[in-house]
Protein backbone atom coordinates (compact mmCIF):
# COMPACT_ATOMS: atom_id res chain seq x y z
CA UNK A 1 0.00 0.00 0.00
CA UNK A 2 2.81 2.38 0.84
CA UNK A 3 4.39 1.75 -2.53
CA UNK A 4 2.29 4.58 -3.84
CA UNK A 5 4.59 6.99 -2.10
CA UNK A 6 7.79 5.68 -3.69
CA UNK A 7 9.51 7.87 -6.21
CA UNK A 8 8.24 6.99 -9.67
CA UNK A 9 10.39 4.67 -11.76
CA UNK A 10 10.28 4.07 -15.47
CA UNK A 11 8.80 0.63 -15.00
CA UNK A 12 5.69 1.94 -13.31
CA UNK A 13 3.19 3.24 -15.75
CA UNK A 14 0.90 6.19 -15.23
CA UNK A 15 -2.00 3.76 -15.28
CA UNK A 16 -0.56 1.68 -12.47
CA UNK A 17 0.02 4.76 -10.38
CA UNK A 18 -3.53 5.97 -11.00
CA UNK A 19 -5.01 2.62 -10.02
CA UNK A 20 -2.96 2.48 -6.85
CA UNK A 21 -3.81 6.04 -5.97
CA UNK A 22 -7.53 5.37 -6.34
CA UNK A 23 -7.23 2.13 -4.36
CA UNK A 24 -5.33 3.86 -1.58
CA UNK A 25 -7.79 6.73 -1.54
CA UNK A 26 -10.69 4.33 -1.26
CA UNK A 27 -9.07 2.36 1.54
CA UNK A 28 -8.03 5.43 3.52
CA UNK A 29 -11.45 6.99 3.00
CA UNK A 30 -13.07 3.87 4.38
CA UNK A 31 -10.77 3.81 7.40
CA UNK A 32 -11.18 7.52 8.11
CA UNK A 33 -14.94 7.46 7.61
CA UNK A 34 -15.20 4.52 9.95
CA UNK A 35 -13.17 6.46 12.51
CA UNK A 36 -15.24 9.58 12.09
CA UNK A 37 -18.47 7.64 12.47
CA UNK A 38 -17.40 6.59 15.96
CA UNK A 39 -16.50 10.09 17.05
CA UNK A 40 -18.89 12.35 15.20
CA UNK A 41 -20.56 13.87 18.21
CA UNK A 42 -17.42 14.71 20.18
CA UNK A 43 -16.86 18.46 19.94
CA UNK A 44 -13.87 19.93 18.15
CA UNK A 45 -12.04 23.23 18.37
CA UNK A 46 -12.24 24.10 14.70
CA UNK A 47 -14.17 22.90 11.71
CA UNK A 48 -11.93 23.92 8.83
CA UNK A 49 -12.97 23.98 5.18
CA UNK A 50 -10.04 24.30 2.80
CA UNK A 51 -11.43 25.68 -0.46
CA UNK A 52 -8.93 25.11 -3.26
CA UNK A 53 -9.06 26.79 -6.66
CA UNK A 54 -8.99 24.23 -9.50
CA UNK A 55 -9.89 26.58 -12.36
CA UNK A 56 -8.29 26.60 -15.78
CA UNK A 57 -5.09 28.28 -14.62
CA UNK A 58 -4.40 25.43 -12.20
CA UNK A 59 -2.64 22.71 -14.15
CA UNK A 60 -1.58 19.32 -12.81
CA UNK A 61 1.66 20.70 -11.34
CA UNK A 62 -0.09 23.56 -9.57
CA UNK A 63 -2.84 21.25 -8.33
CA UNK A 64 -0.23 18.92 -6.83
CA UNK A 65 1.65 21.85 -5.31
CA UNK A 66 -1.51 22.86 -3.50
CA UNK A 67 -2.43 19.37 -2.35
CA UNK A 68 1.11 18.53 -1.30
CA UNK A 69 1.28 21.87 0.50
CA UNK A 70 -1.88 21.04 2.44
CA UNK A 71 -0.65 17.51 3.19
CA UNK A 72 2.74 18.71 4.34
CA UNK A 73 1.16 21.35 6.54
CA UNK A 74 -1.04 18.69 8.19
CA UNK A 75 2.09 16.67 8.96
CA UNK A 76 3.96 19.67 10.32
CA UNK A 77 4.83 19.26 14.02
CA UNK A 78 3.76 22.84 14.76
CA UNK A 79 0.36 22.29 13.18
CA UNK A 80 -0.16 18.95 14.94
CA UNK A 81 0.94 20.53 18.21
CA UNK A 82 -1.57 23.32 17.74
CA UNK A 83 -4.34 20.80 17.10
CA UNK A 84 -3.53 18.67 20.12
CA UNK A 85 -3.11 21.65 22.43
CA UNK A 86 -6.59 22.96 21.71
CA UNK A 87 -9.33 22.79 24.34
CA UNK A 88 -10.82 19.73 22.63
CA UNK A 89 -7.58 18.54 21.10
CA UNK A 90 -9.32 17.85 17.82
CA UNK A 91 -10.36 19.50 14.57
CA UNK A 92 -12.46 18.60 11.58
CA UNK A 93 -11.10 19.19 8.08
CA UNK A 94 -12.81 19.14 4.73
CA UNK A 95 -11.52 20.08 1.28
CA UNK A 96 -13.71 21.64 -1.39
CA UNK A 97 -12.33 21.96 -4.91
CA UNK A 98 -13.96 24.86 -6.69
CA UNK A 99 -14.15 26.20 -10.20
CA UNK A 100 -17.31 26.27 -12.35
CA UNK A 101 -19.01 24.13 -9.74
CA UNK A 102 -17.68 23.41 -6.29
CA UNK A 103 -17.45 19.86 -5.09
CA UNK A 104 -16.28 18.10 -2.00
CA UNK A 105 -12.88 16.59 -2.62
CA UNK A 106 -12.46 15.33 0.93
CA UNK A 107 -15.36 14.67 3.29
CA UNK A 108 -15.17 15.86 6.88
CA UNK A 109 -12.22 14.18 8.60
CA UNK A 110 -11.48 14.33 12.29
CA UNK A 111 -7.88 14.84 13.45
CA UNK A 112 -7.14 14.30 17.12
CA UNK A 113 -3.73 12.60 16.98
CA UNK A 114 -0.52 12.65 15.02
CA UNK A 115 -1.48 9.38 13.33
CA UNK A 116 -4.81 10.77 12.16
CA UNK A 117 -3.07 13.88 10.84
CA UNK A 118 -0.70 11.73 8.79
CA UNK A 119 -3.57 9.54 7.57
CA UNK A 120 -5.53 12.58 6.38
CA UNK A 121 -2.38 13.99 4.77
CA UNK A 122 -1.98 10.74 2.84
CA UNK A 123 -5.58 11.03 1.70
CA UNK A 124 -4.98 14.58 0.51
CA UNK A 125 -1.92 13.54 -1.49
CA UNK A 126 -3.90 10.74 -3.13
CA UNK A 127 -6.84 12.93 -4.14
CA UNK A 128 -7.60 12.55 -7.83
CA UNK A 129 -7.29 15.80 -9.73
CA UNK A 130 -10.46 17.80 -10.19
CA UNK A 131 -10.54 20.29 -13.03
CA UNK A 132 -12.63 23.22 -14.14
CA UNK A 133 -12.58 26.36 -16.17
CA UNK A 134 -13.91 29.47 -14.48
CA UNK A 135 -13.27 31.06 -11.09
CA UNK A 136 -16.72 30.97 -9.52
CA UNK A 137 -15.84 32.07 -6.03
CA UNK A 138 -19.30 33.38 -5.12
CA UNK A 139 -20.87 30.08 -6.17
CA UNK A 140 -18.35 28.27 -4.01
CA UNK A 141 -19.17 30.41 -0.97
CA UNK A 142 -22.89 29.81 -1.63
CA UNK A 143 -22.19 26.06 -1.73
CA UNK A 144 -20.32 26.19 1.56
CA UNK A 145 -23.10 28.19 3.15
CA UNK A 146 -25.92 26.00 1.86
CA UNK A 147 -24.47 22.50 1.71
CA UNK A 148 -21.21 22.09 3.61
CA UNK A 149 -21.22 24.14 6.79
CA UNK A 150 -24.71 23.06 7.89
CA UNK A 151 -23.45 19.47 7.84
CA UNK A 152 -20.48 19.72 10.19
CA UNK A 153 -20.74 16.37 11.96
CA UNK A 154 -19.78 17.61 15.44
CA UNK A 155 -20.13 20.80 17.50
CA UNK A 156 -17.27 23.16 16.64
CA UNK A 157 -16.12 26.19 18.60
CA UNK A 158 -15.05 27.85 15.37
CA UNK A 159 -16.04 27.39 11.76
CA UNK A 160 -13.30 28.59 9.46
CA UNK A 161 -13.18 28.72 5.68
CA UNK A 162 -9.77 28.93 4.07
CA UNK A 163 -10.13 30.23 0.51
CA UNK A 164 -7.17 30.04 -1.84
CA UNK A 165 -6.97 30.98 -5.49
CA UNK A 166 -5.07 32.86 -8.14
CA UNK A 167 -7.88 34.96 -9.57
CA UNK A 168 -10.94 37.08 -8.94
CA UNK A 169 -14.46 35.75 -9.47
CA UNK A 170 -15.10 35.74 -13.22
CA UNK A 171 -18.44 33.95 -13.24
CA UNK A 172 -20.85 36.85 -13.17
CA UNK A 173 -22.90 34.92 -10.64
CA UNK A 174 -26.42 35.80 -9.65
CA UNK A 175 -25.16 36.79 -6.23
CA UNK A 176 -22.18 39.06 -5.61
CA UNK A 177 -19.20 37.65 -3.72
CA UNK A 178 -19.34 40.08 -0.75
CA UNK A 179 -23.07 39.46 -0.41
CA UNK A 180 -22.69 35.72 0.17
CA UNK A 181 -19.52 36.38 2.20
CA UNK A 182 -21.62 38.50 4.57
CA UNK A 183 -24.29 35.79 4.77
CA UNK A 184 -21.65 33.27 5.84
CA UNK A 185 -20.26 35.68 8.40
CA UNK A 186 -23.82 36.06 9.69
CA UNK A 187 -23.69 32.36 10.55
CA UNK A 188 -20.53 33.03 12.59
CA UNK A 189 -18.17 31.70 9.97
CA UNK A 190 -14.65 33.11 9.67
CA UNK A 191 -13.37 33.41 6.12
CA UNK A 192 -9.65 33.77 5.59
CA UNK A 193 -8.01 34.30 2.23
CA UNK A 194 -4.88 32.92 0.67
CA UNK A 195 -4.54 34.70 -2.66
CA UNK A 196 -1.78 33.25 -4.83
CA UNK A 197 -0.08 36.24 -6.41
CA UNK A 198 0.91 34.62 -9.66
CA UNK A 199 -0.49 35.49 -13.06
CA UNK A 200 -2.22 38.45 -14.62
CA UNK A 201 -4.11 39.48 -11.49
CA UNK A 202 -1.18 39.27 -9.11
CA UNK A 203 -1.00 42.99 -8.45
CA UNK A 204 -4.65 43.48 -7.49
CA UNK A 205 -5.73 40.09 -6.16
CA UNK A 206 -4.80 40.58 -2.54
CA UNK A 207 -6.89 43.73 -2.25
CA UNK A 208 -9.75 42.05 -4.05
CA UNK A 209 -9.65 39.16 -1.57
CA UNK A 210 -9.61 41.63 1.29
CA UNK A 211 -12.64 43.51 -0.03
CA UNK A 212 -14.68 40.56 -1.25
CA UNK A 213 -13.64 37.34 0.49
CA UNK A 214 -12.22 38.03 3.95
CA UNK A 215 -14.87 38.16 6.67
CA UNK A 216 -15.63 37.48 10.30
CA UNK A 217 -13.93 38.47 13.55
CA UNK A 218 -10.18 37.88 13.50
CA UNK A 219 -10.22 36.96 9.82
CA UNK A 220 -7.10 37.64 7.82
CA UNK A 221 -5.47 37.50 4.42
CA UNK A 222 -2.13 35.78 4.01
CA UNK A 223 -0.87 35.87 0.45
CA UNK A 224 1.39 33.36 -1.24
CA UNK A 225 3.87 34.86 -3.67
CA UNK A 226 3.47 31.92 -6.06
CA UNK A 227 2.16 28.35 -6.22
CA UNK A 228 5.57 27.21 -4.97
CA UNK A 229 5.04 29.42 -1.92
CA UNK A 230 1.59 27.92 -1.22
CA UNK A 231 2.90 25.28 1.20
CA UNK A 232 4.62 27.86 3.38
CA UNK A 233 1.54 30.08 3.48
CA UNK A 234 -0.99 27.33 4.19
CA UNK A 235 1.13 26.01 7.05
CA UNK A 236 1.22 29.42 8.68
CA UNK A 237 -2.49 29.87 8.10
CA UNK A 238 -3.37 26.51 9.63
CA UNK A 239 -1.56 27.29 12.85
CA UNK A 240 -3.33 30.61 13.31
CA UNK A 241 -6.73 29.31 12.19
CA UNK A 242 -6.68 26.22 14.35
CA UNK A 243 -5.34 27.94 17.44
CA UNK A 244 -7.88 30.73 17.22
CA UNK A 245 -5.31 33.24 18.48
CA UNK A 246 -5.06 36.76 17.17
CA UNK A 247 -3.46 36.40 13.73
CA UNK A 248 -1.07 39.28 14.45
CA UNK A 249 0.29 37.51 17.53
CA UNK A 250 0.19 34.12 15.86
CA UNK A 251 2.18 35.07 12.83
CA UNK A 252 4.64 37.12 14.87
CA UNK A 253 5.40 34.07 17.01
CA UNK A 254 5.71 31.90 13.91
CA UNK A 255 8.75 33.88 12.88
CA UNK A 256 10.64 31.95 15.54
CA UNK A 257 9.33 28.58 14.33
CA UNK A 258 11.38 26.61 11.85
CA UNK A 259 9.59 26.90 8.49
CA UNK A 260 8.54 23.69 6.78
CA UNK A 261 10.45 24.68 3.69
CA UNK A 262 13.72 26.14 4.97
CA UNK A 263 14.58 27.54 1.56
CA UNK A 264 11.47 29.69 1.50
CA UNK A 265 11.47 32.82 3.62
CA UNK A 266 8.32 33.76 5.50
CA UNK A 267 6.63 36.21 3.23
CA UNK A 268 3.15 37.38 2.43
CA UNK A 269 1.29 40.24 3.91
CA UNK A 270 -1.22 40.09 6.70
CA UNK A 271 -4.30 42.19 7.26
CA UNK A 272 -6.57 41.34 10.15
CA UNK A 273 -10.25 42.24 10.37
CA UNK A 274 -11.39 43.03 13.88
Amino acid at each position, binding site marked *: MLEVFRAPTRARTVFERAIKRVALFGLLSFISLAAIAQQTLQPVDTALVIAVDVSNSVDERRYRLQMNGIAKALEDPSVIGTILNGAQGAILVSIVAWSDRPQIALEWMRISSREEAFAVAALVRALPRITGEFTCLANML*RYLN*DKVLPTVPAPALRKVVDVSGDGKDNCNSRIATPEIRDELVGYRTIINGLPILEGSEALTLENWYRDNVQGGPGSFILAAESFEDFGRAIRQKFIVEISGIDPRDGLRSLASVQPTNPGMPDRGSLRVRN
Partner: protein
Amino acid sequence: MKLARDGWLRAILIACILAVFYAQSAAASDLTARQVTVRLFEAPAGERVDFNDLNLTLIDISGLDFKKAVFVGADLYGADLSGSNLSGTDLSYTRLDRSSIINTNFSGADLTDATLLRPTTFTNTRFDRSEVANFTGAKLVRTRIFARLDGASFREADLTDADFSPLESGANTIATVPHNMLTGADFTRARMRGVDLQQGHLDFAIFRDADLRAADLRAAELNQADFRGANLAGANFAGATVAGAQFAGAKGLQSAKGLGVAIRPEQGGLKRP
Protein backbone atom coordinates in the same frame (compact mmCIF):
# COMPACT_ATOMS: atom_id res chain seq x y z
CA MET B 1 -52.70 72.06 -9.18
CA LYS B 2 -49.03 71.17 -8.96
CA LEU B 3 -49.51 69.82 -5.43
CA ALA B 4 -52.33 67.54 -6.59
CA ARG B 5 -50.20 66.24 -9.45
CA ASP B 6 -47.30 65.53 -7.10
CA GLY B 7 -49.66 63.64 -4.83
CA TRP B 8 -50.80 61.42 -7.67
CA LEU B 9 -47.23 60.75 -8.77
CA ARG B 10 -46.27 59.85 -5.21
CA ALA B 11 -49.24 57.47 -4.95
CA ILE B 12 -48.31 55.79 -8.23
CA LEU B 13 -44.70 55.44 -7.09
CA ILE B 14 -45.75 53.84 -3.79
CA ALA B 15 -48.10 51.49 -5.63
CA CYS B 16 -45.28 50.43 -7.94
CA ILE B 17 -42.94 49.77 -5.01
CA LEU B 18 -45.61 47.73 -3.25
CA ALA B 19 -46.32 45.76 -6.42
CA VAL B 20 -42.63 44.91 -6.87
CA PHE B 21 -42.37 43.94 -3.21
CA TYR B 22 -45.45 41.73 -3.44
CA ALA B 23 -44.22 40.10 -6.64
CA GLN B 24 -40.87 39.32 -5.04
CA SER B 25 -42.38 37.93 -1.87
CA ALA B 26 -44.82 35.84 -3.89
CA ALA B 27 -41.99 34.31 -5.91
CA ALA B 28 -39.68 33.61 -2.98
CA SER B 29 -39.43 30.01 -1.92
CA ASP B 30 -40.60 28.88 1.50
CA LEU B 31 -37.16 27.54 2.45
CA THR B 32 -33.61 28.49 1.57
CA ALA B 33 -31.23 25.84 0.30
CA ARG B 34 -29.45 26.00 3.65
CA GLN B 35 -32.72 25.31 5.49
CA VAL B 36 -33.38 22.32 3.23
CA THR B 37 -29.89 20.97 3.98
CA VAL B 38 -30.35 21.48 7.71
CA ARG B 39 -33.71 19.69 7.69
CA LEU B 40 -32.19 16.71 5.91
CA PHE B 41 -29.07 16.68 8.08
CA GLU B 42 -30.93 16.91 11.36
CA ALA B 43 -33.61 14.35 10.53
CA PRO B 44 -33.34 11.16 12.57
CA ALA B 45 -32.12 8.15 10.63
CA GLY B 46 -34.94 6.52 8.70
CA GLU B 47 -37.32 9.47 9.03
CA ARG B 48 -38.69 10.89 5.78
CA VAL B 49 -38.40 14.67 5.80
CA ASP B 50 -41.63 16.48 4.98
CA PHE B 51 -41.52 19.08 2.20
CA ASN B 52 -45.18 18.69 1.29
CA ASP B 53 -46.87 21.61 -0.48
CA LEU B 54 -43.85 23.88 -0.08
CA ASN B 55 -42.79 26.48 -2.58
CA LEU B 56 -39.24 25.43 -3.43
CA THR B 57 -38.99 27.28 -6.71
CA LEU B 58 -35.67 28.40 -8.13
CA ILE B 59 -33.49 27.18 -5.28
CA ASP B 60 -30.24 25.29 -5.68
CA ILE B 61 -30.66 22.01 -3.86
CA SER B 62 -28.25 20.14 -6.10
CA GLY B 63 -26.06 17.35 -4.79
CA LEU B 64 -28.23 16.57 -1.77
CA ASP B 65 -29.32 13.16 -0.56
CA PHE B 66 -33.04 13.52 0.11
CA LYS B 67 -33.34 10.23 1.98
CA LYS B 68 -36.78 9.33 0.59
CA ALA B 69 -38.25 12.71 1.56
CA VAL B 70 -41.89 13.55 0.86
CA PHE B 71 -42.67 16.42 -1.53
CA VAL B 72 -46.35 15.83 -2.30
CA GLY B 73 -47.76 18.91 -4.02
CA ALA B 74 -44.51 20.86 -3.73
CA ASP B 75 -43.55 23.39 -6.36
CA LEU B 76 -40.00 22.77 -7.60
CA TYR B 77 -40.21 24.99 -10.67
CA GLY B 78 -36.69 25.96 -11.77
CA ALA B 79 -35.05 24.21 -8.82
CA ASP B 80 -31.54 22.88 -9.36
CA LEU B 81 -31.67 19.17 -8.55
CA SER B 82 -28.49 18.23 -10.41
CA GLY B 83 -26.66 15.33 -8.86
CA SER B 84 -29.28 14.97 -6.15
CA ASN B 85 -30.39 11.62 -4.88
CA LEU B 86 -34.20 11.62 -5.04
CA SER B 87 -34.36 7.84 -4.97
CA GLY B 88 -37.48 6.64 -3.20
CA THR B 89 -38.87 10.13 -2.67
CA ASP B 90 -42.54 10.94 -3.03
CA LEU B 91 -42.79 13.61 -5.72
CA SER B 92 -46.42 13.01 -6.59
CA TYR B 93 -48.37 16.08 -7.72
CA THR B 94 -45.20 18.18 -7.82
CA ARG B 95 -44.29 20.74 -10.45
CA LEU B 96 -40.77 20.06 -11.69
CA ASP B 97 -40.98 22.25 -14.77
CA ARG B 98 -37.73 23.98 -15.84
CA SER B 99 -35.85 22.26 -13.07
CA SER B 100 -32.28 21.12 -13.61
CA ILE B 101 -32.05 17.32 -13.42
CA ILE B 102 -28.54 16.65 -14.69
CA ASN B 103 -27.46 13.28 -13.26
CA THR B 104 -30.40 13.27 -10.86
CA ASN B 105 -31.41 9.95 -9.40
CA PHE B 106 -35.20 9.43 -9.45
CA SER B 107 -34.99 5.65 -9.15
CA GLY B 108 -37.96 4.28 -7.25
CA ALA B 109 -39.42 7.77 -6.79
CA ASP B 110 -43.16 8.38 -7.04
CA LEU B 111 -43.90 11.04 -9.66
CA THR B 112 -47.59 10.29 -10.04
CA ASP B 113 -49.43 13.25 -11.59
CA ALA B 114 -46.25 15.36 -11.50
CA THR B 115 -45.23 17.61 -14.37
CA LEU B 116 -41.72 17.71 -15.80
CA LEU B 117 -41.77 20.23 -18.60
CA ARG B 118 -38.55 21.35 -20.25
CA PRO B 119 -36.10 20.49 -17.53
CA THR B 120 -32.40 21.09 -18.08
CA THR B 121 -30.99 17.64 -18.60
CA PHE B 122 -27.48 18.20 -19.96
CA THR B 123 -24.77 20.74 -19.24
CA ASN B 124 -24.57 21.66 -22.90
CA THR B 125 -25.98 20.51 -26.22
CA ARG B 126 -23.71 17.47 -26.33
CA PHE B 127 -25.06 14.12 -25.15
CA ASP B 128 -23.18 12.87 -22.12
CA ARG B 129 -24.31 9.56 -20.70
CA SER B 130 -22.96 10.39 -17.27
CA GLU B 131 -25.39 13.30 -17.04
CA VAL B 132 -28.57 11.37 -17.83
CA ALA B 133 -31.23 11.32 -15.13
CA ASN B 134 -32.21 7.91 -13.82
CA PHE B 135 -35.89 6.87 -13.55
CA THR B 136 -35.33 3.15 -12.98
CA GLY B 137 -38.29 1.66 -11.10
CA ALA B 138 -39.94 5.06 -10.70
CA LYS B 139 -43.70 5.51 -10.64
CA LEU B 140 -44.67 7.92 -13.39
CA VAL B 141 -48.41 7.30 -13.56
CA ARG B 142 -50.09 10.12 -15.50
CA THR B 143 -46.88 12.11 -15.27
CA ARG B 144 -46.69 14.89 -17.85
CA ILE B 145 -43.21 14.96 -19.38
CA PHE B 146 -41.75 17.12 -22.08
CA ALA B 147 -38.01 16.81 -22.06
CA ARG B 148 -34.80 15.75 -23.70
CA LEU B 149 -34.09 12.49 -21.94
CA ASP B 150 -31.95 10.67 -24.48
CA GLY B 151 -30.44 7.54 -22.99
CA ALA B 152 -32.45 7.75 -19.76
CA SER B 153 -33.30 4.56 -17.93
CA PHE B 154 -36.99 3.89 -17.26
CA ARG B 155 -36.34 0.21 -16.66
CA GLU B 156 -39.18 -1.42 -14.71
CA ALA B 157 -40.82 1.98 -14.22
CA ASP B 158 -44.58 2.39 -14.09
CA LEU B 159 -45.50 4.78 -16.90
CA THR B 160 -49.19 3.93 -17.05
CA ASP B 161 -51.00 6.75 -18.88
CA ALA B 162 -47.86 8.91 -18.73
CA ASP B 163 -48.10 11.80 -21.15
CA PHE B 164 -45.07 12.53 -23.35
CA SER B 165 -47.13 14.20 -26.05
CA PRO B 166 -46.01 17.40 -27.74
CA LEU B 167 -46.92 20.51 -25.88
CA GLU B 168 -49.92 22.48 -26.91
CA SER B 169 -49.27 25.63 -28.83
CA GLY B 170 -50.72 28.92 -27.76
CA ALA B 171 -50.87 30.75 -24.49
CA ASN B 172 -49.24 29.48 -21.31
CA THR B 173 -46.96 27.09 -23.11
CA ILE B 174 -43.25 26.90 -22.60
CA ALA B 175 -42.66 24.72 -25.64
CA THR B 176 -39.91 25.66 -28.05
CA VAL B 177 -39.30 22.29 -29.70
CA PRO B 178 -41.98 19.96 -30.99
CA HIS B 179 -40.81 16.55 -29.77
CA ASN B 180 -39.79 14.67 -26.71
CA MET B 181 -36.24 13.46 -27.19
CA LEU B 182 -35.87 9.90 -25.92
CA THR B 183 -33.30 8.42 -28.28
CA GLY B 184 -31.81 5.27 -26.80
CA ALA B 185 -33.99 5.47 -23.70
CA ASP B 186 -34.39 2.16 -21.90
CA PHE B 187 -37.97 1.06 -21.06
CA THR B 188 -37.13 -2.58 -20.40
CA ARG B 189 -39.98 -4.31 -18.49
CA ALA B 190 -41.67 -0.94 -17.96
CA ARG B 191 -45.43 -0.82 -17.46
CA MET B 192 -46.53 1.62 -20.16
CA ARG B 193 -50.20 0.87 -20.72
CA GLY B 194 -51.88 3.87 -22.34
CA VAL B 195 -48.66 5.91 -22.47
CA ASP B 196 -48.71 8.79 -24.92
CA LEU B 197 -45.44 8.90 -26.86
CA GLN B 198 -46.79 10.38 -30.06
CA GLN B 199 -44.21 12.21 -32.19
CA GLY B 200 -41.47 11.26 -29.77
CA HIS B 201 -37.94 10.73 -31.02
CA LEU B 202 -37.34 7.19 -29.83
CA ASP B 203 -34.74 5.78 -32.22
CA PHE B 204 -32.75 2.96 -30.61
CA ALA B 205 -35.09 2.96 -27.60
CA ILE B 206 -35.40 -0.34 -25.76
CA PHE B 207 -38.89 -1.66 -24.94
CA ARG B 208 -37.95 -5.25 -24.21
CA ASP B 209 -40.75 -7.07 -22.36
CA ALA B 210 -42.50 -3.75 -21.76
CA ASP B 211 -46.28 -3.51 -21.44
CA LEU B 212 -47.26 -1.10 -24.22
CA ARG B 213 -50.92 -2.02 -24.47
CA ALA B 214 -52.95 0.84 -25.94
CA ALA B 215 -49.85 3.00 -26.15
CA ASP B 216 -50.00 5.99 -28.47
CA LEU B 217 -46.94 5.87 -30.70
CA ARG B 218 -48.35 7.82 -33.61
CA ALA B 219 -45.76 9.57 -35.75
CA ALA B 220 -43.03 8.51 -33.36
CA GLU B 221 -39.53 7.85 -34.66
CA LEU B 222 -38.74 4.30 -33.61
CA ASN B 223 -35.97 3.29 -36.01
CA GLN B 224 -33.82 0.47 -34.60
CA ALA B 225 -36.04 0.34 -31.50
CA ASP B 226 -36.18 -2.95 -29.65
CA PHE B 227 -39.71 -4.28 -28.96
CA ARG B 228 -38.71 -7.89 -28.38
CA GLY B 229 -41.06 -9.55 -25.94
CA ALA B 230 -43.17 -6.38 -25.53
CA ASN B 231 -46.96 -6.45 -25.36
CA LEU B 232 -48.21 -4.20 -28.16
CA ALA B 233 -51.92 -5.05 -28.08
CA GLY B 234 -53.91 -2.04 -29.18
CA ALA B 235 -50.84 0.17 -29.54
CA ASN B 236 -51.13 2.78 -32.27
CA PHE B 237 -48.15 3.09 -34.62
CA ALA B 238 -49.87 5.18 -37.30
CA GLY B 239 -47.30 7.29 -39.10
CA ALA B 240 -44.43 5.98 -36.98
CA THR B 241 -41.11 5.10 -38.58
CA VAL B 242 -39.84 1.71 -37.51
CA ALA B 243 -36.93 0.92 -39.86
CA GLY B 244 -34.80 -1.83 -38.40
CA ALA B 245 -36.94 -2.15 -35.28
CA GLN B 246 -36.93 -5.55 -33.58
CA PHE B 247 -40.28 -7.24 -32.90
CA ALA B 248 -39.27 -10.87 -32.21
CA GLY B 249 -41.47 -12.35 -29.52
CA ALA B 250 -43.65 -9.23 -29.33
CA LYS B 251 -47.23 -9.93 -28.28
CA GLY B 252 -50.46 -8.38 -29.59
CA LEU B 253 -49.06 -7.39 -32.97
CA GLN B 254 -52.32 -8.35 -34.63
CA SER B 255 -54.25 -5.72 -32.77
CA ALA B 256 -51.55 -3.04 -33.01
CA LYS B 257 -52.64 -0.26 -35.32
CA GLY B 258 -50.61 1.27 -38.11
CA LEU B 259 -48.14 -1.54 -38.50
CA GLY B 260 -49.22 -2.09 -42.12
CA VAL B 261 -45.95 -3.65 -43.10
CA ALA B 262 -44.70 -7.21 -43.30
CA ILE B 263 -42.86 -8.64 -40.35
CA ARG B 264 -39.79 -10.66 -41.20
CA PRO B 265 -39.50 -13.14 -38.36
CA GLU B 266 -36.14 -14.38 -39.56
CA GLN B 267 -34.69 -11.00 -38.71
CA GLY B 268 -37.15 -10.19 -36.01
CA GLY B 269 -37.74 -6.85 -37.70
CA LEU B 270 -40.07 -5.04 -40.03
CA LYS B 271 -39.66 -4.52 -43.73
CA ARG B 272 -40.23 -0.96 -44.79
CA PRO B 273 -43.16 -0.60 -47.21
